[in-house]
C-alpha cells in the first residue's frame, strides 16, 4: 500500500512546486506583469475545499481497505507446520536492553536468532522487561513496540526459506544500534530439530550448572 501514499505525495509536491515555478517565471513585476484583480469568491473556495475533501477521503478509504487486508490473520499453508493449522504458532519475543529473547511453545528459548517454520502462521507476542523496544524485520512484517506491562502482537507468515535481518527501531539506550535480530525461516522438519537440540543444550547446560553447584565449585 506504499504506492497510495507515494502517489498522493507526488500529486501534492508536483502541484505546489509547479505552481511556484510558474508564478516565479511568468508573473514578475520587472518583466512587466500587472496584478490582475482577484478572481473567484466564496464559490471557488467551496470547490477547492470539496476537491481536497474528496482527495483526503479517498486516501482514508484506500488506507482502511489495505490496512484491513494486511491485518487479516495469515493461514498456515500445505508446506507449513502441521500443528499450527488451526491456531497460529505462538512465540514470545522479549525485548531487553539490548537483546531479543524468543520463547518457543515447548519451553526452549533462543537469544538474538528467531527460528520459524516456512509457510506457517506465526503470532509473535511482544513484551519488554525494561524500556520500550520496537521489533522491526521489515521484509516479514510491520514494526510493533514492545512496551513494559503490555502485550503487543505481530502476525506474519514467511513464504520463503532464508535468513531475514532485523533491528530495533526505538532508542533504548547506549547499545540501541547494535540491538539487532535475525529470523531464520526453515522447513518444519528443521524447525522441530532446532527446538529439540535447543532444549537438549539448555538442559545439558543446566545440568552442568547443577553439577558445579553440587561439587561445591560454585558457591
Amino acid at each position, binding site marked *: 500500500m506504499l504506492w497510495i501514499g507515494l502517489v498522493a505525495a507526488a500529486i501534492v509536491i508536483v502541484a505546489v512546486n509547479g505552481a511556484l515555478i510558474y508564478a516565479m517565471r511568468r508573473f514578475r513585476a520587472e518583466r512587466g506583469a500587472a496584478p490582475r484583480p482577484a478572481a473567484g469568491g466564496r464559490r*471557488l473556495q467551496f470547490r477547492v*475545499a470539496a476537491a481536497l*475533501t474528496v482527495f483526503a477521503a479517498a486516501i482514508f478509504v484506500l488506507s482502511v481497505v489495505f490496512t484491513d487486508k494486511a491485518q487479516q490473520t495469515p493461514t498456515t499453508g500445505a508446506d507449513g507446520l502441521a500443528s499450527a493449522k488451526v491456531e497460529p504458532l505462538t512465540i514470545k519475543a522479549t525485548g531487553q536492553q539490548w537483546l531479543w529473547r524468543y520463547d518457543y511453545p515447548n519451553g526452549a528459548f533462543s537469544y538474538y536468532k528467531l527460528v520459524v517454520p516456512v509457510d506457517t502462521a506465526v503470532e509473535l507476542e511482544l513484551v519488554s522487561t525494561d524500556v520500550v523496544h520496537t521489533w522491526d524485520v521489515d521484509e516479514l512484517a510491520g514494526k510493533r513496540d514492545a*512496551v513494559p506491562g503490555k502485550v503487543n502482537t505481530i502476525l506474519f507468515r514467511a513464504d520463503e526459506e532464508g535468513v531475514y535481518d532485523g533491528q530495533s527501531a526505538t532508542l533504548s539506550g547506549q547499545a540501541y544500534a547494535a540491538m539487532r535480530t535475525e529470523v531464520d525461516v526453515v522447513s518444519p522438519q528443521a524447525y522441530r530439530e532446532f527446538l529439540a537440540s535447543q532444549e537438549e543444550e539448555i538442559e545439558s547446560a543446566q545440568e552442568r550448572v547443577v553439577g558445579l553447584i553440587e561439587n561445591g565449585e560454585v558457591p
Partner: protein
Amino acid sequence: MSDAARAELVVDGFPGRRRPRWVELATSADHKDIGRILIGGSLGFLFIALIELLLMRLQLAIPENSFLSPVAFNRMLSDYGATAVFLFALPLALGLFYYVAPLQVGARGTALPRLGQIGVAMFAAGATVLYGAFLFTPSEAGVNPLAPLSELAFLSNNGVDVWATATGLVTLGFVLLAVDLLTTLRRMRAPGMAWRRVPVFSWAAAVSCWLMLVIGPVLLAALTMLMIDRNYDGIFFADGSGGAPLLWQHLSWIFFSGAYMLILVFALGTIAEIVAAFSGRPLQGRGVTMGSLAAIAVLGTLAWMQNMMTAPIGIGWMYFAMLMSLALIVPFGLVIFNLLSTLVGGALRMRAPLLFAFGAISAISIGLGAEIEQSMVGAAWQLKNTTDATAATHFALVGGAVFGGFAALHYWFPKMTGRTMGESLARISFWTMFAGVLVAFVPLFFAGAEQGQVIDAYKYFDGAGVDVYNLIASIGVLVLAIGIVLTLANAISSRVHGPEAGHDPWGGESLEWFALSPPEPHNFDVLPDVRSARPLRDIRTAIANRTQRPEQPARETQPVA
C-alpha cells in the same frame, strides 16, 4: 543623594536612565525588547543546533563510524532536539509574534508586560540549565525521552532531570508570553480593528497563543510527573504498581504535535503577509485562510497518536489518528491554494522575503506530502521510526521554522533595526540553503522507505545498502549549514551596515509600517481609525484622492504603491 546630584541624573526630563544598554534591554518589559531578545537568542541557538546536527551527520557519514561514542551521540541527539524545538523554532515564532503582532493591531504595548518579562527570563533560565548541563551530564534519552528509558532505573545520572527542568522552564515561559500576547490581541486592538480586519500574521499569533495555552500545560504536567518519578519514587510512568509507560507518550506527543502545528501556523501566517505585500494584490480568500489556520491547530494536535502507530493501542485509535491527520489536508490545502492563487496573476517583486517564502512553501509541501504516507496506518507500520520520518519532519520544520523564519526576518528586519538586510547575500544564502535541504533530506527518504534505516541510531552497518544515502545526506547538511550561517552573518552585519530603510520599505498595508523604524517605545503617536483589513492602503488612497486633480478618476480603484 543630594538634590544637586539628583538633578544631574535628569536627562531629557527622565531621571536616572543611565544604565548600560544591555541592562536596559535585559530588564525591559517592552514587547519590542523582549521580542528582540527572543529572536536574537533563537538565532544563536539555531547556530548551536546546526553544530550538533553536523557532528551527528559526521558520525553517520560512513558506516560503523567511531567518531562519536554511543553515549556522546545520544547526548548530542537529546540536546539537538531540545535546542531545535525549545530554543530555536518556538522562541523564534513567539518572538516574532511578540514583536510584530502588537504593532500590527495598533497597540501601544502589551497588556501584561510583567508576564512577558518573566517569560523571557524563564526562556533564558531554561537555556542556561540545558547548556549548563555540559559541565556534568546532558540527557541521553533522545529527542522525546520516552518513559521508561527516561526513568531513574535506566538513566540514573542527572541528564534527564536537566532536560526536564530546562524544557519545563522554557515551556512555562512560553505559556506566560502566550497569556500576555493573547490578552493584548483581544483587548488592545486599534479602534475599528474587528477580528475580520486583523492581519493574518496577528491572527496566526492569536491561534498560536491559544494552542500554547492548551499544549504547554500538558507538557508541564508530564514533566512534573517525570520529575516525581525520578526524584520522589513516583510511579506515574513505571510499569507495575499501577503506572503506565504509554501515558508519557500520549502527553508528550500532544505537546510535540501541537508545537509542530504552531510552527507551521507561524510560517503560513508569515508567508500570507509576504505574498500579499510582494505580489501587489490582496490575499485571496482571507477569511478562509484564517479559519484554516485555526483548523490546523485543532486537527493537528488531535492527531497526536499519529506518532504511536506501532504502540500497543487499539486499531480504532490508529484510524482516529489517521482521520485527523488526513483531515489536515483540507485546511493546509486551502491555505496553500490561496497563497498560490494570490501569487499566480500577481506582479511579483522577487525580493529576499518572497524568495524565502517560496522556499518555505516548497519545503513544507514536500514534508507534508511525505507525512501523508506516515499517517496511513498500514504504511506507517513500515515507515515509522525510519529516516523517512526524519526527512518528512525536517522538510516540514526546516521549511516552517528556518525558511519561514528567515522570510519573516528579512521582511521585518527593517522595522526592527531601521536597515534592510543585504539583498545579494540573501540570494546566495537562499539558494545554498535550498540546495542543501534537498541534498540533505531527499536521500534519507530513500534510506528509510527503501532500506528501513532506523532513526536515532549512532551507527549503521556495512552492507545495509544505505552508505551512499548517508554520505550524501551529510554533505547536504553541511551545505544547508553554510547557507544558514550566511544569513546569520548577513543579519549581524546589516544591523550596522545595511542600507537605511524608511518606515515602510516594502509598501506594506498593515499598521506596523505606520510606526517608525525602529518604533518608538510607545509604538505610535497617533493611530488612524481602521476601516478595512488594509489600513495603510486606505491612507494612501485618501492622500492620493486629496492631491489629485478632478480629471483623473481612474486612480481611485488602483492600489498606490
